[in-house]
């Protein structure tokens, strides 16, 4: 019975962090689908969400909700500036150049945050108290509920945006065929900019809601970004249910592995899964194989 309780506990916290990975994975997929770019600075947007909220809360003394809005807005602007200054000037960029540029941006952002706010890890207060709710012998924190709630809302929001608005449909058109999209009068450049903006906002939001649980610092972006990428890969780089499932599976496996095997190897488990999937099913867990075009 003891073990069962423990396992339930691991699964619950795994699902919560898994939701975060799903959100970050979603933010990867949004950019990838309209541009074919994997943004290695994606984790930095997540980090900025958390760090900027703490800054607005503690230094600017804004109320929590306003602090979150400010943090997400500022991160979104940084995403916009990043696309304008680093991605747009590249004409006919090879994947290699894009990887190097986005890595450059990620260490630049990390460095600036470190200089501005130091190396200390900080925690955001939980949104609505820390009284645990007990379910089936395991405890659930109110923050877990916030994470689940926000994740569901963002995913529904994204779905509505991509399927039912003109801009969303235009972005999807770009992802199917940029040239054709251009021919029917869609401004591809603007859609690329849009995708960076939305992706930065989603990433930042993920960073905000996880900050009370895991603490945040200038260097948390790397790991969170990579786990998000892992979730996106598991979902086949789609922006839908696959990524969410990928994130949840990853979070749960990681939490179980950390709890039952060793917490030191937590991150190694995620990367081991990433490698396995890349080697065996690079098209994702839930997608049928596509023939590769040359």
């Amino acid at each position: 019975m003891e073990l069962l309780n423990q396992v339930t506990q691991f699964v619950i916290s795994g699902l919560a962090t898994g939701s975060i990975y799903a959100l970050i994975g979603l933010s990867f997929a949004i950019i990838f689908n309209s541009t074919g770019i994997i943004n290695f600075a994606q984790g930095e947007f997540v980090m900025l969400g958390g760090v900027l909220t703490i800054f607005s809360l503690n230094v600017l003394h804004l109320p929590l909700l306003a602090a979150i809005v400010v943090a997400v807005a500022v991160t979104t602007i940084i995403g916009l500036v990043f696309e304008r200054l680093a991605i747009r000037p590249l004409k006919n960029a090879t994947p290699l150049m894009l990887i190097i540029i986005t890595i450059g941006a990620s260490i630049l952002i990390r460095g600036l945050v470190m200089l501005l706010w130091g190396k200390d890890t900080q925690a955001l207060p939980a949104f609505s108290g820390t009284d645990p709710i007990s379910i089936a012998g395991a405890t659930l924190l109110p923050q877990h509920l916030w994470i689940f709630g926000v994740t569901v809302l963002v995913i529904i929001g994204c779905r509505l945006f991509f399927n039912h608005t003109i801009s969303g449909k235009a972005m999807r058109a770009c992802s199917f065929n940029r040239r054709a999209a251009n021919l029917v009068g869609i401004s591809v450049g603007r859609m690329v900019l849009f995708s960076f903006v939305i992706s930065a906002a989603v990433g930042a939001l993920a960073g905000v809601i996880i900050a009370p649980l895991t603490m945040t610092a200038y260097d948390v972006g790397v790991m969170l970004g990579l786990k998000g990428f892992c979730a996106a890969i598991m979902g086949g780089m789609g922006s839908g249910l696959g990524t969410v499932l990928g994130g949840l599976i990853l979070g749960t496996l990681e939490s179980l592995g950390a709890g039952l095997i060793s917490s030191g190897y937590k991150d190694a488990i995620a990367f081991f899964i990433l490698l396995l999937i890349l080697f065996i099913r690079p098209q994702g867990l839930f997608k049928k194989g596509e023939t590769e075009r040359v």
Partner: protein
Amino acid sequence: MKSDRIKFLFFALVVLLIPLPLSGGYLTNVLIFVGINSVLALGLNLLLGYAGQISLGQAAFFGLGAYGSGVLTTAYGLNPWLAMIAVALCVAAFAFAIGFPVLRLKGHYLAMATLGVGVIVNIAFNETVDLTGGPSGLSGIPNLSIGSLTFDSDLKNYYLVWVFALGMILLSLNLVNSRFGRGLRAIHDSEVAARVMGVNARLMKVQVFTLSAFMSAIMGSLYCHVMTFISPNSFGFSMSVELLTMVVIGGLGSVYGSILGALLLTLLPEMLRTFQDYDIIVYGLLLITMTIYLPGGLVEGIPALFRLLVPAKKVTEGSDA
């Protein structure tokens, strides 16, 4: 080819003479790391600049070399030279084995997979405390020695490292001008076209990956004996990114470019020491601006700048002829 040989001999001469006026001071110590980083960057450049295959886990092989030698010589008392050879061969075998699945991937996926390997190896350094000392590192690694000559001063270590480095630079120069090197460049331009022309692209990619791992492992062994102390921090993701920066700044697909990049990025933090943590920002800015404005790196940039500064002369020469 003859001018290449003269260029290399000149370079080797400069390398061997430089420390003499420095008489083993602080700068000599820095130049040891320039040597180590040069070979690491060169290994990555063979893979990235010539074959067009990215690796974000290069520091892992460096670390495996260092930890392999460190553990075998301290815990098991193995002869350091023997340990170096054994470890380098093991690391090469490891790279060869993982090379087949890893290098089947392309672009972003390849970057992520190599990064994953790098992170897993680094976590292993941190977690296998009994063997590696974990986060607090491994100390008491002996210096290398030949007979009664022990490499225990900066000057001796400088020559030790650079003799190895010069050997590997010469090897790389020969390699990139060989049939193998041409094959790599063909893969870079178009893997499909290279295959059509009869290049065994898959095997060649794994071979160059293995070679770069082998070079990194040897440098790792030297590093651990020079430093006599190692800790996981030196072999993490940031080290891999640093190596990538060296290659990009120096010039993709240029042997001397890697050395230039290593020289610049090893000296830069020393010069920026008064500003401490600023170097990370400088790296980021350098990576972005170089990729956008000077994708050929300094090796192409410096001659271009030269031509820009003295254009008039060239024009008159041309009109005379």
